[in-house]
């Protein structure tokens, strides 16, 4: 479809409700991308997502988007300022490379939720799967349930808060991200260790729990994990291995 025609269709449809049984995904995302600063179209609702990929990807205005149902890959990817709520579960890569704003998933999230996220808040009210927060670079992630294996792999900065359990190899090759887990950890990955919970961490965690709307849970119930920093420099004793 030519771009001019598309934007006309998108404009005609610029009411706040998008039914993906009627409109195309491309029309929805184009309408979101056409928003300009100060637009009055601040509340959006998406019906019948039915596992579609890339719902509300690339939002760059502070609008709220309620997605009524479950989505497929990459929902809310690259979000910059939007407040996206998925009233269902999310497929792989929800909030991938988020810059700012927030994404809340009412159900479960599949693998690599919040991967490479640079900012903003991702809340998963159910469980998240493997590789949650892989290579996170400043995003805050709060998971009410459990997370799967290899989560926070090579996580660089930001905070990952897990109210349930974490799977195997948590925080493998981690840099400076902070991991807070309330339940059991299957195993820690290379160079990831348990760390002391100091007052500033309790305060930080309380702030994260507040922002994520978590009540009835105390920061003192969590353990903190982070980098032992032994992989930061090459150890000459390992030269023979290469």
């Amino acid at each position, binding site marked *: 479809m030519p771009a001019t025609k598309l934007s006309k269709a998108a404009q005609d449809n610029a009411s706040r409700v998008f039914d993906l049984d009627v409109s195309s995904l491309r029309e929805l995302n184009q309408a979101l991308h056409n928003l300009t600063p100060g637009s009055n179209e601040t509340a959006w609702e998406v019906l019948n997502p*039915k*596992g*579609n990929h890339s719902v509300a990807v690339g939002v760059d205005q502070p609008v709220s988007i309620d997605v009524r149902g*479950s989505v*497929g*890959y990459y929902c809310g990817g690259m979000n910059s300022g939007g407040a996206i709520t998925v009233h269902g*579960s999310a*497929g*792989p890569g929800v909030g991938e490379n988020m810059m700012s704003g927030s994404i809340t998933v009412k159900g*479960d999230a*599949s*693998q690599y939720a919040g991967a490479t996220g640079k900012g903003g808040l991702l809340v998963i009210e159910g469980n998240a*799967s*493997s590789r949650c927060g892989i290579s996170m670079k400043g995003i805050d992630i709060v998971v009410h349930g459990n997370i*799967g*294996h*290899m989560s926070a792999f090579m996580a660089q900065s930001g905070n990952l808060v897990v109210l349930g359990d974490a799977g195997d190899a948590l925080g493998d090759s981690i840099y400076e991200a902070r991991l807070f887990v309330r339940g059991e950890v299957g195993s820690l990955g290379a160079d990831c260790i348990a760390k002391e919970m100091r007052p500033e961490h309790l305060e930080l965690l309380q702030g994260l729990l507040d922002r994520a709307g978590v009540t009835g849970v105390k920061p003192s119930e969590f353990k903190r994990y982070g980098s032992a920093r032994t992989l930061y420099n090459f150890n000459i004793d390992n030269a023979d291995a290469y």
Partner: protein
Amino acid sequence: MCGIVGLFLKDKALEPKLGAMLSEMLVSLSDRGPDSAGIAIYGAAAGNEAKITIQSPKPERDFRGLDTELAKALGAPVSIAVKSTHAVIRTTPDKLDAAREALQSLRPDIRIMGAGEAVEIYKEVGLPEAVVDRFDVRKMTGTHGIGHTRMATESAVTTMGAHPFSTGADQCLVHNGSLSNHNNVRRELIREGMKFETENDTEVAAAYLSSQMAHGKNLGEALEGTLSDLDGFFTFVVGTKNGFGVVRDPIACKPAVMAETDQYVAFGSEYRALTKLPGIDNARVWEPEPATVYFWEH
């Protein structure tokens, strides 16, 4: 990438719709693999007949008169139902092995897609929509079935390289992923007497399971063995005469979603594949855990 689906019915009332439901699921994943598609449908085993699904590059030449010639060779009744490039041969169960041998000598160019009491397998190069239309899969009834749409990585885009792969009576398998030790495992299985049709990694996984079950393991135990004996990426969905199983490798990077209600157990590479199933909004939906075997039997 590849897309895989599976559907195991608990509610007999859905059996007439199995082909239609499974077709819908597979077509919804078309963009996960445009190279070829295939589907295996398990009809209720009557106990008094064996079925062999065959395929020919020249169906008009190979299928004409085949029932009469095969009946004569076996000394038993034979019927043939032709569907495009495939045909289903029916005979008595005691003649299954003899029929396989006779088919190869009567029609050297045909390929056997699968055989058993319940399974029929249809697979061809092309998109899922074209494949299910060509074989009229939507009209098929049955108790359970699996399907695959392929983005080829490990071997050529041919009919024989399409999934499902069947290497034992009423057994078949679809695979999303790629195996790295398939050449070694294939050599070991050949030494055991297994026969291979392709260079494909998935055929090795199917043959591995057939071999394990031939040694007395049940489907669950055989699937457990893949975790230690097969190396690589895999999400497998497997069908047997009365069972349906799922296993993912420990890394579990190949996607998988399952749904269960009182009426069915369903598998899809993505949730998209499940959205049109009855009662999906109230189904228990979950991702199968890595390195964990799931199976259901009638």
